[in-house]
């Protein structure tokens, strides 16, 4: 165990990053979209652990992807099945894994307007393993029914859909998505959080069965990787995020 790992408690973001990273599995190529520092950290952690595998493409950071055919290449590669894992979020995510990146309220006269659907309306269909994440776990964000469907959680059997949601990870828990039933099932609750709390703060119905298991916390070895090589890259790529999580100065090691 090294000094950095010993010197401070595990941060909630580190549990989140590790939980995301564990869901990547045996991927060859993981892509990360716009404004997604937590997934980028998880992908970089998986790559560090795998000695360079999987390949990690950060879509909006030209120095951290291998694409040479312009912005469309990610989507073309995904359409062919060359991208194994992608991460999506939403202002709202509902119990059927529909995601909303567009607006709260009426579409024509929204109460709140967000950036837009980005690549979600397409990538959710063609990337085999989509990992959903939401950094706020509340009844405001995890709703029974989204106000606008940027991308649907499931599709009728005749719609071409090799991909879709695998899990939803929040600061409180990991939900697994049952594609056949079209609903979430509680997988694990993060350390220091409870089932009662999830029921209180989740706007959609989810399934669970006892015993409720706990999300594994990162080991000292994993923490050293997050706080060392992964954090060093995050300071370059997502400086505001890195400063917020790890402090204002990059690690000196």
């Amino acid at each position, binding site marked *: 165990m090294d000094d950095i790992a010993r010197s401070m408690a595990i941060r909630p973001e580190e549990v989140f990053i590790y939980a995301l990273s564990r869901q990547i599995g045996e991927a060859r190529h993981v892509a990360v979209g*716009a*404004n997604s*520092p937590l997934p980028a950290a998880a992908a970089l952690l998986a790559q560090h652990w795998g000695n360079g595998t999987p390949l990690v493409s950060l879509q*909006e*950071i*030209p*120095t951290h992807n291998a*694409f*040479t*055919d*312009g*912005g*469309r290449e990610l*989507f*073309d590669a995904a*359409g062919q099945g060359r991208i194994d894992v992608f991460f999506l979020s939403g202002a709202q995510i509902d119990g059927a894994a529909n995601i909303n*990146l*567009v607006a709260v309220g009426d*579409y*024509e*006269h*929204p109460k*709140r*307007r*967000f*950036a*837009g*659907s*980005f*690549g*979600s*309306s*397409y*990538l*959710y*269909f*063609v990337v085999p393993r989509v990992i959903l994440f939401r950094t706020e776990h509340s009844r405001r964000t995890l709703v029974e029914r989204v106000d*606008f*469907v*940027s*991308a*649907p959680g499931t*599709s*009728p059997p*005749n*719609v*071409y859909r090799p991909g879709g949601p695998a899990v939803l990870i929040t600061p409180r828990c990991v939900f697994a998505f049952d594609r056949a039933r079209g609903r979430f099932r509680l997988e694990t609750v993060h350390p220091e959080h409870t089932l009662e709390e999830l029921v209180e703060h989740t706007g959609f119905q989810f399934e669970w069965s006892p015993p409720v298991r706990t999300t594994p916390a990162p080991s000292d070895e994993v923490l050293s990787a997050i706080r060392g090589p992964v954090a060093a890259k995050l300071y370059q790529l*997502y*400086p*505001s*995020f890195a400063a917020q999580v790890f402090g204002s100065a990059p690690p000196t090691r």
Partner: protein
Amino acid sequence: MNSGSAKGKVRGLDDTLATIRDGALLVVPADYGGVALEATRRLVARRIKRLRLITLPTSSLQADLLIGAGCVEEIETSGVSFGELGPAPRFAESVSDGSVRIKDATCPAIHAGLQAGEKGAPFIPLRGIIGSDVLAHRPDWKVIDNPFAQNDPIVLLPAIRPDVALFHAAMADAAGNVWVGRRRELLTMAHAAAKSVVTVEKLFEGNLLEDQAMAAGTIPAFYIEAASVVPRGAWPLGLGEHYPEDRPHLLEYLRLARTRQGFQDYLAQWVLSRHNG
């Protein structure tokens, strides 16, 4: 140098931008593609009106600035946001109050529509999208049955043929060839648009098409209407490996643009006072 035209393609900025008229269907790249922001400030100062803006496939300051200044009638986009710095305030307000019409899209649909445009084809199919409210609000997108299979619905997108493509790149030569390197969405954009208008960091000595390594990343001059040399023309956004974005300036913009008055103050200080006459 003049390639038979009345004047050369490398011109002063006002002359170059004269191609972009009120009401133009204008396509612009995402921040990583090279955004012609000095040119955009000049268009705002010129009080350009009724632009129909298409972002390939997203935007940040460029769209927010044009929308806040009242230059945009309609925007087709997959997302307008300042990434980890925060939401785009003028975009969000103008779309919410209906003063700007929005055509919500998804990234690969804008890429694909322009690819149809560059082929001169009327439409292009794309997977996904079915069952989304994006599709529900796009009456111009159609679902057909794949004619090469049974019971396989697929979306068709109409070709996008912009009047003008506007972007900023590393360099051009005197003949008007423009080097974009691996930013190949700029080639697609230039192929699909009727005319392309470009600002560049510097002039390349010699002809970009004579060296195979350079030619592979070059847009030939016959697509280019005019180009101007504008050093740091993407500021306060970055340009590839040339310079990073100016984060303190972008944060100052976001602080001011939270309110209409603050946005007007920003315009007065950073756009209008520096581009008069």
